[in-house]
């Protein structure tokens, strides 16, 4: 079953529902009642990127559990105080498990989690947890290294463009992983970064892509949520990568590949845990190995040999033989930060706030 609710209607209805639930004293999880699972999205489900990916995960939960669950989603929820209201209302409406799917919901999720100790919360891409709040994330940097490798091999100008959203460790890590991998195969490669300070603003993302291409970039990659930068790449006749979803429709010639976010296994596992009563707080960071990331089918512009190299990189990542942040890694000033052969720890990665050599931002 699906309750399709947009945010405004949700807010209006929420007050009435809350009153009703409180007045009749209904408890959330009676034995025969389906488990209500809530999802809070930062963009519209039709963004064709990040939120779209999470919504595929939600649909997989619906399909897997049928009548045993009831899912609700609230889309386009701004990060900040607005989010707290939405999360609290989901909790008040008797949702037993709530996924909040953007970094900027972390503090809000934590606050609501403290107020509703019997509701389980799962926050994506953050680092704070509580007895009833887990953190989950994907090792996007593993995929970024593949993009950097392919980009480094295919760039003619040596300039890779990066349309970036907001400066948080997650995004900085992706930029750095791209640059390190690109410079391994093309030592003079640089990654040109333009920040648009938004996760979703198609016109501005497209303007940023134009700004990069006009300055000699011939490989486009992005960490914003719409297909706009890739569409510009297609129109200008350069190559690029999709983001979070396969964006081939928008760039049949230009798309080399895309990192696909596969949230379904995590969502299904956590819903199962709540149903079984085995849910415990945890902090997970999954990647290629767990199937949380998959590379989209290679585009026509990726030569056969390069496909083999990229496939091997994925395989080596899974086996643990390859790690994207293996030293020597230098910062922008050229100082060695990670010694040769050393690997950066997860802790250091998660608070990364410096650029590696080759990043121009």
């Amino acid at each position, binding site marked *: 079953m699906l309750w399709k609710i947009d945010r405004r209607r949700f807010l209006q209805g929420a007050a009435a529902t809350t009153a009703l639930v409180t007045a009749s004293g209904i408890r959330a999880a009676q034995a025969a009642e389906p488990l209500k699972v809530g999802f809070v999205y930062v963009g519209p489900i039709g963004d064709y990127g990040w939120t779209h990916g999470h919504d595929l995960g939600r649909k997989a939960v619906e399909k897997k559990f049928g009548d045993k669950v009831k899912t609700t989603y609230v889309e386009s929820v701004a990060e900040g105080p607005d989010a707290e209201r939405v999360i609290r209302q989901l909790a008040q409406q008797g949702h037993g498990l709530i996924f909040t799917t953007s970094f900027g919901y972390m503090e809000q999720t934590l606050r609501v989690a403290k107020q509703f100790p019997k509701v389980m919360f799962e926050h994506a891409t953050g680092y704070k947890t509580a007895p009833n709040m887990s953190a989950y994330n994907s090792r996007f940097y593993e995929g970024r290294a593949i993009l950097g490798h392919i980009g480094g091999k295919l760039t003619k100008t040596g300039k890779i463009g990066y349309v970036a959203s907001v400066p948080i460790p997650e995004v900085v890590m992706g930029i750095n992983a791209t640059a390190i991998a690109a410079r391994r195969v093309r030592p003079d490669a640089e990654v040109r970064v333009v920040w648009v300070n938004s996760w979703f603003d198609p016109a501005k993302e497209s303007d940023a892509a*134009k700004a990069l291409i*006009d300055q000699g970039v011939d490989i486009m990659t992005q960490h914003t949520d719409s*297909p706009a930068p890739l569409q510009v790449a297609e129109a200008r006749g350069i190559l690029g990568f999709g983001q979070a979803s396969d964006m081939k429709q928008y760039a049949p010639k230009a798309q080399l590949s895309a990192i696909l976010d596969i949230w379904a296994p995590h969502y299904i596992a956590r819903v199962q845990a709540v149903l079984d009563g085995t849910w415990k707080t945890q902090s997970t960071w999954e990647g290629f190995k767990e199937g949380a990331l998959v590379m989209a089918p290679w585009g026509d512009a990726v030569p056969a040999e390069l496909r083999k190299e990229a496939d091997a990189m994925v395989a080596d990542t899974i086996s643990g033989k390859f790690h994207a942040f293996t030293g020597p890694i230098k910062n922008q000033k050229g100082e060695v930060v990670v010694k040769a052969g050393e690997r950066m720890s997860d802790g250091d990665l998660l608070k990364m706030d410096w650029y590696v050599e080759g990043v121009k931002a």
Partner: protein
Amino acid sequence: MTADLLVPMFVTVIGAATPLLFAALGELVTERSGVLNLGVEGMMLAGAVTGFGTVVATGSHTLGMVAAAVAGAGMALLFAVLTLSLLANQVATGLALTIFGIGLSALIGARYVGTPIPAMPKLDLPGFTDLPVLGPILFGQDALVYLSLAATAGVAWFLSRSRAGRILRACGESDISAHSIGYHVIRIRYLAVLFGGALSGLGGACLSLSVTPMWIEGMTAGRGWIALALVAFASWRPGRLLAGAYLFGGVTIIQLYLQGSGLVQIPAQVMNMLPYLATIALLTVIAGGAWRGRLDAPACLGKPFSPPS
């Protein structure tokens, strides 16, 4: 930076400024008649999705533009009936119109997500478009850009020179006086609101047909609100509005190019603030300078009017 870079940069600026110019120009006419319509964002989205859908169905960008204008005007008609005939509060109704537009466009557009269309064709005059520097800027744009500039000139002429424009302004300044000398205030305001809606719809079409030829929910990303602010900052004058829209678009784009050059060591957050700061600063200087004219909002802005019986 060389001309090689400045020319494509200016072309990108035009793309960023045109949607704002359309939407703000429409709102300016609406407000000069005394009506405050905060539903610009919703009308833009309605125009964006309808224009897009029409191009998908017919393949004609001209029909897409027409459909976008009609859709924007249709949304505006809803607003006009509620506020002008039924005397609902304009602020609340305008906000509701935006929310309605966001939801309705998402519903209509669900089937178009993932469908690309060809971008609007650019004007290409052999011999002219190939001219260095000015060629691509003056003769290499699409129809919407020329239309937006023509509309600005037309509105400027209409408001300051034409009799009908003066009557419209009279309705905005003193509805009761306009009524008492025999003008049909409500009818005139209806027309102004519909015109505003049509231009907002075209502003949305700029995004979905030209800048990013695709449909994605909420793709206007707040430009309707920027347009509303520009109207006030331009002190309700079309010439200043043109300057404001191009300045805002210009600084937005220039900072993206500066970031992309990799040469400037200014934090990206500061860069992203620049368009807002520059627009506020320039329009404040204009407003306080020697060109100072009447800066007040139309006296009857936002006030409901019902003809005394």
